[in-house]
Each structure stands twice: as C-alpha cells, then as structure tokens.
C-alpha cells in the first residue's frame, strides 16, 4: 500500500508541472493585462512603465523562468488586482470551496446511497420510478436557474433562508449546498441504483438469503460494499467537478471560493492568482484521485491484491 501510494504521488509530479506550464502559457495567450489596470486615458509611456514593473515586457520563456524561480521559493507572485500575495488569496479562498464541496458530497453520497438502495430494492416499483424520475430531473436542471429560483422562493417569498452570503448560522449553507447538491445527487442516485440492482441479483446475495439473512443484512452487509466501486469512481469525478467548478454557486451566493477567484482572475488577467489557484486545485484533484484509488483498494480485496503487482 505504501509503495503504491509513493508511486502514485511520484507519478503525479510530472502531470502537475504540465498543468502549471499549460496554465502559464494559456494565460499569456489572453493578452497583456496592462489595459485593464491602467485608466483608459493612460499614456503609452505609463503603459510601458507598468509592463516593465510587472515583468510583462519580457519574453514568455523569460517570464516563465522568473515564475519558476520564484515558485521554487514558494513565492507565487502578487495579485495585480488587489496587491495581495497570490498565495494568501488562494489560501483564503480554498477552504470555502473545500467546505462547500465536502458538505455537498457528504450529503449527496449518503442521500444517494439511501434513496438509490431503496429504489434498487424494488426495481420498477413506484418508489423506484419516483426516485429515478426525480433524480434524472435534478441532474438536468441548470444550476444557476435553480439558485436564482431558490433565492426568490426560499429567500424572499417564504422568508425561510437568507438570500446569500457566508456570515451567519448553518442556514446560510442551505441554498448554496442545495444548488451544488442537485446534480451530484441526481447522478449518484442513478449510479447507486444501477449497481445495487446488479449486486442484489448476484448469486452471493441469493446465498445470503438462503442463510436466512434479513434484508438489512443483505443490503448493507453484502450488496452495498460490492456496489460501491462505481459509486466511488463517479463520486470522485463529481467531487473534482465541484472543486473546480463551484463558480456559479460562489458567484450567485457571494461565497469567496476558489472558483470565483479563478474566474475573476481569468477575466481580470490576474495571472499570478490564476496560476496559484490552478496549482492548488490541481494538487487537490490529484490527491482526490489517489484517495479514490485507496478507497477502491480498501473496499475491494481484489484491487488491494493487484496493487503491488
């Protein structure tokens, strides 16, 4: 296991560098940010001065070299927009997204396992049909639409929840998490249901029933753990999506997360922040992938055995 982990971590280093380099070059393709940061009436001289101060007058390879040298000293640069250190901004924003994604996935997975198992228990029953239809619909609602509706209905009309924001009790979490939740939940219910139906019709389930096992024992003791592999994979992918893409929710509800930071820094050509943010999410995503692999190994002894090979 440890060998496996070490190998995985080492093999993630090269792709990580690729991501950083890719972002570096792509960002610079979007043009010089000078215009955005100087008043429209700034003179050519002022522009040149600003460019030189920020190092944008150098060739791209030279800029890259400077960036890498600084990065090696854990200095990821300063934000053009706010003048703060990029590292600081990213470290401020990241926990917000991580918490959102964590709570969302926790709820999505537990809810989906519950509903999906119940649905799989009696395929084609009313419960199954309702659960399937609802989950499919949930998975296909545009999230920003759901968010705006949520604000209007629960925030304003019913006056149950705050419209937006991060400050306050647990109630501020409800709408953002609900918005983030619908799609992963919808997808996961279908995945859980699918793999549970397959697991419940497997011969070992018949044998378990032949031993007189109760339904609870059959579902949770036997079927669920076998059904968990595809669920884990999909849940991993969905979490990656959340880490990278809670932009909409963060934008609408005013949560200062990494997604919002990223889109802002893209639109504002704030390269240092963008690079730092991408590096942070990329590291997280790599870690997440490794975590999923470890979970696979933990739940399935066959994978565990195959690992050292």
């Amino acid at each position, binding site marked *: 296991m440890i060998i496996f982990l070490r190998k995985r971590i080492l093999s993630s280093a090269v792709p990580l560098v690729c991501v950083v380099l890719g972002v570096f070059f792509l960002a610079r393709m979007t043009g010089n940010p000078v215009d955005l940061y*100087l008043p429209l009436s700034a003179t050519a001289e002022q522009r040149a001065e*600003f460019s030189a101060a920020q190092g944008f007058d150098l060739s791209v390879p030279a800029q890259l070299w400077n960036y890498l040298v600084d990065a090696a000293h854990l200095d990821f640069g300063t934000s053009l927009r706010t003048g703060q250190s990029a590292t600081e901004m990213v470290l401020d924003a990241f926990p917000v997204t991580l918490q959102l994604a964590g709570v969302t996935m926790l709820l999505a997975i537990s809810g989906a396992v519950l509903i999906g198992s119940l649905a799989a228990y009696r395929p084609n029953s009313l419960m199954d049909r309702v659960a399937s239809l609802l989950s499919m619909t949930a998975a296909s609602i545009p999230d920003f639409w759901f968010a705006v509706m949520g604000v209007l209905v629960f925030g*304003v009309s019913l006056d149950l929840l705050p419209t*937006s924001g991060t400050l306050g009790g647990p109630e501020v979490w409800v709408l953002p998490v609900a918005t983030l939740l619908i799609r992963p939940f919808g997808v996961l219910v279908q995945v859980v249901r699918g793999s549970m139906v397959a697991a419940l019709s497997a011969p070992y389930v018949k044998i378990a029933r032949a031993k007189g096992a109760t339904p609870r024992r059959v579902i949770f003791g036997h079927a669920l753990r076998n059904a968990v592999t595809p669920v884990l994979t999909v849940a991993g992918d969905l979490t990656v999506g959340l880490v990278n893409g809670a932009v909409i929710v963060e934008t609408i509800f005013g949560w200062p997360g990494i997604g919002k930071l990223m889109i802002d820094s893209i639109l504002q050509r704030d390269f240092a922040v963008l690079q730092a943010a991408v590096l942070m999410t990329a590291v997280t995503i790599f870690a997440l992938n490794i975590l999923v692999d470890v979970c696979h190994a933990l739940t399935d002894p066959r994978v565990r055995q195959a690992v050292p090979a």
Partner: protein
Amino acid sequence: MKFSVSSTPPTGRRRYRATTATLLAGTVLLASGCAVAGSAAGDAGRADGRTLRVVLTQEPPTLEPCEASLTGTGVVVRSNITEPLVERDPDSGELHPLLATGWKQRDDRTWTFDMREGVTFQNGEPFTAEDAAFSIDRAVNSDLACNVEGYVFGDEDLKVTAESDTRLTVTTEQPDPILPLRLSFVEIVPRTTNADAKVRIPVGTGPYAVASWQPGAAINLSRYDDYWGDAPDFPRARYVWRSDASVRAAMIDKGEAEIAVALDPVEAEKDTTVAFPNNETTALRLDGREAPLDDIRVRRAVDLAVDRDGIIDALLGGLAEPAGQLVPPGVVGHNEEIEPTPQNVKEATALIDEAEADGVPVDRQITLVARNGMFAGVSETAEALQYQMQKIGLNVKVRMADTATQLQYQLRPLPEDVGPIALLIMHGNQAGDAAFTTSQYLLSDGPQSTFGTEELDRRIADAGALSGDQRQKAFADLLVDQNRSVVQYAHLAHMSGLLGLSPSIRYEPNSATGDEMRLAEVSPAKAGQH
C-alpha cells in the same frame, strides 16, 4: 389450488411504506428545522437600524485611496473614508471647498490652497498642508502607478509645497485652468502613510473609518466620532457584494440590505428602487478607416437606423434618455440644442443604396463588438443594433467580448486586420468637463478614437484653453461639428443607474453615486429612529 406468492404480505408492505414516509418526513423536518433555526439574517447582519448595509457588485480590489478613481474602490473610499481638498457638486458641476477652504490662481501655472483647520485623521493626527502635499505627491508624482495619476493627470508632474500648516502651493508644468477639478480626485491621507507601496486599508479624514475587512465576505465601517463635519446618522456601515443583480434585488426585498447598487432595469417598477442618471453615455463607435464605414453616408445611415426609443423602452427599462452626443447633461460642454437622431429606416436605406451605387462595399461584414456586463441588457442591445443595421442592408456580426478583449478594440494601438469595427462603448464623464471626453474620443489620434478631422482637432485644442462660458460654447459647438462632418459615433443613450433602497432609509442618489456613495447623506426614514 393456486395462489400467488408474489402478492406481498400486507404487513410487510405497510411497514415498508411507513419507513419511506418516516424518512421523507424526517428529511423535510430536518431541512425546515435548519431553515427556521436561525431564520435568515444573511451576511449583511440583522436589520438593527444602526448599521447601514450596502450591497455592491464586487468586492473592492483594494481600498487604496490613490486608486479611488477605480469604481469598485472609489464607491467605498471616496467621501466616506477619505476626502479630497475640493469636491465637485455632481448636479451643478460646481466645485465646493472641502479640506481646502478656498483656492486662488496666482499665475498661469501656480495655485494656492488654504487648508481647513481643526480636522483630524482617524488615527488622531491633525490634518495640515503637509499631509495634503504628501498625498498629492504620493498619488501623482510617485512610482506607485496610481490609477488616479493616469486618469486625471497624464504624464504631468506637479510641484507641491506646504508653505505653512494651512497653505499649499501647487505648480503645474503647463497652464491648467481646471487644476482644482483635477485635484478633487486626490484623496488626502496622513503623511505617515506608506509612500513606497500601496496600502489596502487607508486612514483618512472622512466620517467613517474602516473597522474590519473580512476578505470575501464584508467590509465594516464605523463612525469616526471626531469627524470635523456633521456626524452621519448611522453609527456603522457594512459593505457586502453579490455579482448577480437579482440576488442584490432580493436582498433589498428581504430586508438584508438597505442599499443595493446596479439593479437590472426589470426591477424599475418596484417602489424600492430609484433610478438616477449616472453620467454614462452609450454609443456605437464606427471605425472610419475601414470600408464601408469609411464612407460618411454609411456612418450616417447607421446613425439613422438605430431605434433609440425602442431599445430604451424594451431593453433598458425606459430608464435612459436618447442621446445625440457623448457629453451628458450637467457636464460642461453639453449642448442642449442637439436632438437625438430619430430612426429613419427609409432615409438610411437610401443612403446605403447611394453609397453602394458609388462602389462602396456595403456588404462587407462589419463586426459589432460589445462587452459582457457593460450594462444590464448589453447583449440584447447588441443584438437589436445588429438587427437594425442589417435591416438597412449592412452585413453585421456581433462579437461579445470580456473587458480585456474589448479594451483591445477600444484603445490605441487599435487592432489590425480585424475588418470594419462598430464598437459599443459606454463613456462615463466623472469629471464633469467635456475636455475629458473630447481629448479621448474625438481627437483624430485620441486614445479611444479611430479617426477625426484636422478641423475638429483644432477646435478641441482651442476649446481646452478657454474657461467659463466660452469654454462651454466652444465644446457645445464642436459636438455639433462631429455629428455633422465626422459622424464617428452613432449615439445611443444617456444611461441611468438603478439603486435599490430599503423603505427604512432615505437617500437621494445623484450622477456620482456609482463612483462615490456618500453614506453620510443616508438617513433613517423615520426621524428619531436611531
């Protein structure tokens, strides 16, 4: 004897249903329980009548006073945290004393300012001419690359000296008749402020001081008790930000904020909103260097094709005024005589036909560039303009851009090899003088202009050297000239902002509200509430 084992024993079935029902009920209860538990105060805090809660579109990138000409920064900083020497009345355009009690022009290039006494900074230090000199130096002459430097002063450096505690002398390199107006953009900070680097949280002489900045969440201000002027009504203020206009509107409806900026025109009918002219003017800038836009008949046809009233009523919520010039009312140089061009499709088509007959390639594709988020309904407006231009026989494609991309089209050096461009621009004349407009947009080599005429250039230069009524008339006349002989712009509308105001407060927005929202002017609706 036959029976079916698949019909479920009734007990089992019922229990199963009961389980489902319990689960469902539990979920609902849990959800509503969470909801009720804290009920809904939101970021801006509970309405306590003592905190003024303002919701902006975005978090201010910084509160550095020398960046106050950035809208996002200025709206919080200006006149709330820091103050300039001179302030401009947004309605009349007149200059009023603020930290300076008066000023005099000694000669062409030298001005003296008298400092107000008894003013202290929020850190307790007294305000003197030394501080004023420091602040001007820091903003205009330093290497900080302050936004205000580029915005109002260009390359020019100022020589500033504090002759005594109460007297300041400013010397310009060139004669500058509007120096006091320019200085109204320089916010005064204490001389202890870092001169080599920008600060994120400033100290000023304003009625409010920064209490805390929760990054990403809120900025809290508290009343500065030793403020030299009248004490504002609200002891505390809190800024939050939401980029979605419907959420900002919802926060007003819900009572989560007292003031919300930049609402969508859709909300205009609510009685919690108030519209105000914001000195922004929209227009299509036609690139006169490229066929077919190089033909004045085609440019005039475009001007005639635009249905200003239709666009304003349908897309801008009826909040804007049709425009015939770039300079809005209330700004020196605005010409009352100019009428917006009425739509005349027939005449426009005739002009195009005429041009086509003379060999102008009117079917060459024109790119209509507009910026996402420039104003509410911008992409619909672009589509409407495209449709109206196509109706008179032009070939137009829309390209929506982000700010950075749009700036490449807007600013010199203009992009090459992109064909004829019709750029949707929105020009805000914060400064109140047409010179800020003409030197940028009308000079043939102006930073935001594509072409012009020598005649117009000459008139602009002449007008800039004048002052008083002569200045007004010279600028007003040259605006007519642009419409007659240049037609670089098909003007669209003088825009309005829409502010959401809670019924619990009273506030009169003015044309500067978008850049400078004076919290001290906000009062509770019912007297004696606080």
